[in-house]
């Protein structure tokens, strides 16, 4: 087992994986290693990943995306799916099933439905730089037994401060370029 897979197995249940990855100092290096035994291979720069938007709270009243859409990149990781390994329509169907499940589990929460998808070129996400010239995000292959296409975006810089704010708005910019409402 490579050290990247070992790290993600060790911290499988952690909600602060991004912070742990950042502290390990291996966030960028491990992009070239598989993070899961179910992995079809590390995520390549030329790939595109997809985020299915299912929470209406992250879409504003003119159809734009909120910067908070990807706030999970600071915590357990921002879930995306690799379009080399899943069709957009299949990802949307999975999103619909997930929304139904969550609506059933939490009827008091805002009703979820698939509002659209965000297509993110991996090289653009990896090229986001902040004022300290640091890379802001890593894209790691975190395939699941039930979803070989699964990957995560992790923030590799501290959670707060100017760099974090800059990274968030740059990621929003990429996301809006690839947003396809349903």
């Amino acid at each position: 087992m490579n050290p990247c897979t070992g790290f993600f197995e060790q911290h499988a249940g952690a909600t602060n994986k991004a912070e742990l990855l950042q502290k390990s100092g291996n966030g960028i290096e491990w992009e070239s290693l598989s993070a899961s035994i179910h992995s079809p291979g590390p995520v390549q720069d030329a790939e595109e990943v997809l985020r299915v938007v299912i929470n209406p709270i992250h879409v504003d009243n003119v159809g734009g995306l909120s910067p908070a859409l990807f706030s999970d990149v600071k915590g357990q990781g921002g879930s995306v799916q690799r379009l080399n390994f899943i069709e957009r329509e299949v990802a949307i169907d999975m999103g619909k099933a997930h929304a139904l499940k969550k609506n059933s589990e939490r009827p008091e929460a805002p009703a979820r439905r698939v509002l659209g998808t965000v297509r993110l070129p991996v090289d653009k996400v990896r090229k986001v730089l902040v004022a300290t010239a640091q890379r802001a995000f890593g894209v790691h292959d975190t395939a699941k037994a039930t979803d070989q296409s699964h990957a995560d975006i992790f923030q590799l810089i501290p959670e707060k401060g100017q760099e974090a704010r800059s990274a968030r708005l740059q990621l929003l910019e990429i996301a809006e370029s690839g947003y396809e409402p349903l």
Partner: protein
Amino acid sequence: MLGVITTVGAIVIGSAVMRPIPSKQDGWKLSEVPTLVSSSTKVMTEELISSVSVATATSAEFAFAADMQPKFEALRSTLHRYKSLTDGWDGDDSVAAKPEHIDALERILDLLPAGVQTPNPMIASDGEVGFYWKSPEFVADLVIENATEFSLFIRSRNAGHNEIYIPTIAINSKAPAEISNAFLSI
């Protein structure tokens, strides 16, 4: 030199008023390292502030300001709805926002200077609440730090991608000037 800065500042605030919120921008250069302009609010001269007031005090703006009331009421309604969210609202690990943070955000609505575009509200899965703005010239967000303070970040869309970050602004009568100065400094 001051005249140039004044013109640019007036255009930024003026366009924030007049232009619709875009959903997509051109010319965004992702590979460039952003330029740090300032970590605190720049001091503005009375002349600059005065000229901005003149630039924004048009009859069109007054009409726009009147139209803002329904938008602000809608914003307040959204903020009140945030209070109904409980832990787990955006995934198993998400947390609810603190009510005092939502109250603080609502107080900021009354402190936004004239000419600043109506913000969009946001809430993150970690309970962070704030506002954000998008214009052809910049993107910006404001985040509640605690019940009495917020932070403001603005990033230019122009070449160089200048950034302004003010980590702490007190929610009081001085806040409108600090917000104005920040938007004019970008």
